[in-house]
């Protein structure tokens, strides 16, 4: 499609994102696998941008993964969400932002259902009162946390120490953006740019100096599939779908992948390792993989944060070739140290995918 056409579609799907005062809920997957990404998100919003974002220790999982595993009924899932809204109401906020894309999809679905079927909302209110003696207002605005960095992308860019540019050639890096399915495939109007041309990550990458790659399987699922990953017997499904994406993006020689969904990040990082171990195939240059990042990690890198404070040592695909390409300074010997330089053991080297 010609650029003008894309611009028109994107303009149809611009959502309103308030400037400040957010109630924040975390992601189960991101906390487990990329904890520093959430730490970085709050640090940038509070310390770099001076925004008010509030978290209560009383918030919990939204139950979304269990719901998509059919472990809990829809009514349970909606009542857990209602409890999160009650915590927001209690704290005096009306803008709600969540770190998880599965959660974002469920919040969108729940609010849509309540809008269409007020009797369902009434039933959930009754459930919440009966179980927790709590009441709630629905959020005035709902945003995924990537929406917030999209909104502030140019402010982050203005403070950036590094750009997503090859320091030797001056060329923009080639960036694959991967949007979690539940961000906009279910309710396109809830995501920046809709489902067809979501702009949330593309906007960030372009603002920070990169060029987006358009490749055939750009919108294909990473393959999480809930039970298709969480049951060991089914994991071929998950692996096969990531494989399909890597094969499709390979001819475009991407320098990096950026995701807004913590699950997608995990699978696209770890399945590259599995593919290499099983078939010796690698997708990056010189036997490395294509490094995969969350948007918080990329923002932190451009702002000049220490890559090991950003948690890039928890990635299986080595990030150093990309850091070198941009010219980001780092101390390789500190990669696997604990707090205060504490010596802890280092990971074993994989057989087939090169690591630093």
């Amino acid at each position, binding site marked *: 499609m010609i650029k003008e056409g894309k611009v028109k579609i994107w303009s149809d799907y611009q959502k309103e994102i308030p400037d400040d005062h957010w109630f924040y809920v975390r992601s189960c997957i991101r906390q487990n696998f990329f904890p520093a990404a959430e*730490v970085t998100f709050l640090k940038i919003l509070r310390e770099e941008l001076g925004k008010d974002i509030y978290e209560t220790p*009383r918030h919990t999982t939204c139950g979304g993964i269990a719901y998509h595993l059919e*472990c809990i009924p829809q009514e349970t899932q909606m009542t857990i969400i209602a409890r999160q809204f009650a915590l927001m109401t209690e704290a005096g906020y009306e803008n709600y932002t969540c770190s998880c894309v599965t959660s974002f999809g469920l919040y969108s679905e729940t609010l849509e259902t309540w809008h269409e079927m007020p009797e369902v909302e009434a039933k959930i209110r009754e459930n919440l009162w009966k179980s927790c003696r709590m009441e709630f207002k629905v959020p005035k605005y709902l945003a995924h946390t990537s929406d917030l960095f999209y909104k502030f992308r140019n402010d982050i860019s203005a403070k950036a120490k590094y750009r997503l540019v090859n320091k030797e050639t001056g060329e923009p890096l080639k960036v694959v953006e991967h949007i979690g399915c539940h961000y906009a495939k279910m309710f396109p109007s809830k995501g920046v740019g809709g489902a067809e041309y979501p702009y949330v990550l593309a906007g960030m990458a372009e603002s920070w100096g990169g060029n987006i790659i358009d490749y055939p399987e750009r919108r294909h699922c990473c393959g999480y599939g809930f*039970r298709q990953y969480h049951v060991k017997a089914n994991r071929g499904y998950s692996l096969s779908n990531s494989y399909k994406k890597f094969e499709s993006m390979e001819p475009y020689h991407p320098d990096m992948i950026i995701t807004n969904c913590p699950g997608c990040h995990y699978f696209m990082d770890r399945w590259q390792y599995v593919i290499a171990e099983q078939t010796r195939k690698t997708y990056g240059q010189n036997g490395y993989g294509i490094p995969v990042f969350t948007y918080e990690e990329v923002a932190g890198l451009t702002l000049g944060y220490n890559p090991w404070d950003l948690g890039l*040592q928890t990635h299986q695909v080595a990030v150093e070739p990309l850091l070198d390409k941009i010219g980001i300074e780092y101390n390789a010997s500190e990669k696997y140290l*604990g707090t205060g330089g504490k010596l*802890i053991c*280092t990971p074993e080297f994989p057989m087939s995918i090169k690591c630093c």
Partner: protein
Amino acid sequence: MGKLYDRLVKDIRIKEWLKACINCGVCVAICPAAEFYKYNPKTIVNIVQSHDDEQIEALLKSDNIWYCGECMSCMTRCPRKNAPGMIIMALRSLSIDMGYFVESEKGRQQLPLQRTFCSNILDYGYCVYPRTFAYEDHPESGTVGKWISDNLEDVHKRLGSNLDGEGPGVLRKIPKESLDDLKAIFDVTGATARMKLVEDASAKKAQEMGLSIEEYVKKAFNDPGHGHTNE
């Protein structure tokens, strides 16, 4: 109109997301599951809209309804605003409610899933919790995954987590009052009852298969079975 169909149409997801399927097959073309498994979302929607209880019962007892990954790519594409993924969710719920899920290999995976994820929610307040995410069950997490697992406290401390700590932060200890709230929600909204149903039906099926419940769980979690995937 049969009784299974009558129960299905009471599900919100069917009310909202089943219109009239025109059999165009776009959902099949876009579906990651259809590419991997012997699976066709269009056929499933057709069976539901046939209103034929005999066919619906066979579907609820089959592996077919457990192949979907719930990515909801179909929901974006359907020209008639159907959502086969949502219809699948309603079918799975009914299969569990009727106790039919134990009749298929993929349906029997419900027990190990429930034991892990409901326990994670009720005991810790998270769907995924690092101390129950065993490397042995997740070798794909790689050499770095093993390193994190072997050095959990040190790695999380280095990265700024508040693992099992008081107050806010990454992987904080969820206060007991909040866990009590989750338990009360489970009791009031049917999750506790569903857990008991899955345990009881699985125990009965394990006995029928000549397996201990531990063997049944292990088989359901590890055994990929035969004939599910496209070659």
